[in-house]
């Protein structure tokens, strides 16, 4: 399979002490909370044979969320309520209807929608390929982001009219730790190295 198609797995993560030296050009932002230590994350992406860029955690968060359009919470909630209704309608279709989705797909799709709302993604368009999946779609002028949700896999596709930019697959069991998926998705959308924050590794620092 080509390099454009990656399967994302838990990645090695090293949390370094804040006293260590940063590479040239790296910005040191203030910690998120006044009493928190500024963690620096080294994330090894799928194709990395060497360590990738070093950034303080707060900088990574600020960068990865910089493209989120400002939408009021109530507006966002309303949009997601409409999405919930649309998913419900897909589930409630007649048994013989070709557009009806299966229950496990519905449950996973609802879970994903809830996480997307938590991560302040604008509400997506929704369509289906049939009973086995639901597709969430965001588009701007030239780029499309699709998130295909099936009972056991989430597949992200980022494309332009010219080419497929990126494809990533996540097993749905990773939804139990959405912190692994949605920031990674945002990073992929911005063509940045995919960064996962490994809670276990972070906890070691405490």
């Amino acid at each position: 399979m080509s390099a454009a198609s990656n399967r994302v797995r838990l990645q090695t993560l090293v949390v370094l002490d804040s006293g260590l030296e940063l590479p040239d050009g790296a910005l040191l932002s203030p910690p998120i909370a006044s009493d928190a230590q500024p963690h620096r994350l080294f994330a090894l992406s799928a194709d990395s044979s060497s360590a990738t860029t070093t950034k303080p955690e707060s900088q990574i968060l600020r960068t990865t969320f910089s493209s989120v359009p400002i939408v009021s919470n109530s507006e966002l909630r309303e949009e997601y309520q409409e999405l919930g209704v649309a998913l419900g309608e897909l589930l409630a279709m007649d048994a013989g209807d070709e557009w009806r989705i299966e229950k496990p797909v519905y449950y996973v799709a609802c879970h994903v929608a809830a996480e997307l709302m938590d991560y302040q993604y604008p509400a997506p368009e929704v369509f289906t390929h049939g009973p086995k999946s639901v597709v969430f779609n965001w588009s701007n002028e030239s780029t499309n982001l699709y998130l295909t949700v099936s009972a056991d896999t989430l597949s992200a596709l980022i494309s332009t009219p010219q080419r497929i930019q990126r494809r990533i697959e996540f097993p749905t069991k990773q939804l139990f730790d959405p912190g692994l998926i949605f920031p990674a998705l945002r990073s992929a959308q911005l063509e940045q190295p995919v960064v996962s924050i490994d809670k276990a590794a972070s906890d070691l620092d405490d």
Partner: protein
Amino acid sequence: MRYRRIPDGDNLFRHSVYPVSFKGPRFQSAKLWRLIDDQMSVVTSVAWQRYVPTARHVHEYGCRLALARNERKRSEGKYQDSSRQIYCGAYQLSARAVRALAETDGLGEIASANVVHRIEENGEIAHAELKVTLKSTGSDVEGTKTAIIDRLWNACAGPMAHVCECDVDVAPHPSGHLTTPPSGQYLDTRSYLSCLWFLIGFHIRSWYWRTFHRQRAL
């Protein structure tokens, strides 16, 4: 039946029908295509220009398509005016663009992509089958379908919007909401003579099929 390979340079048309390709009043490009699972393949339908040689023929095919769906719903007792199927227009793409799917970066799970002439049981002689065969790589088939429809949309040109005679009462007609794909509008660049040649060929083939093949099928 022997399926005939469609030459790379030939045009294909995908018909857009309301409400299937729409979300509310808005056209949704991702819903233009519907890929059906067929073992390790996904298949869908298009019309081959050799058997719909002019825009009029392309649209007649679309009108028949919507009409047949409405009739089927009626016969099942499920027809509702609110869910009436309305043909809105067609998008063009080439057979070459379909076959190029197999060489697309990021679609390594595709073993082959092809389009063949396959006359439908209902006698639609322009019907062609677009078939994408997948490798058994264990990758998510549903995700692959999304990638395929994304690439197909980007290979399309159009729309050729249309209002069928039976839908002139629909106002506003949803064909006004069809959007232009990234490749732009469809321009029929065939010369007058070429069109005439297509038309003559179409009438001969239609006559031949109706006379011989259909009788054999019956």
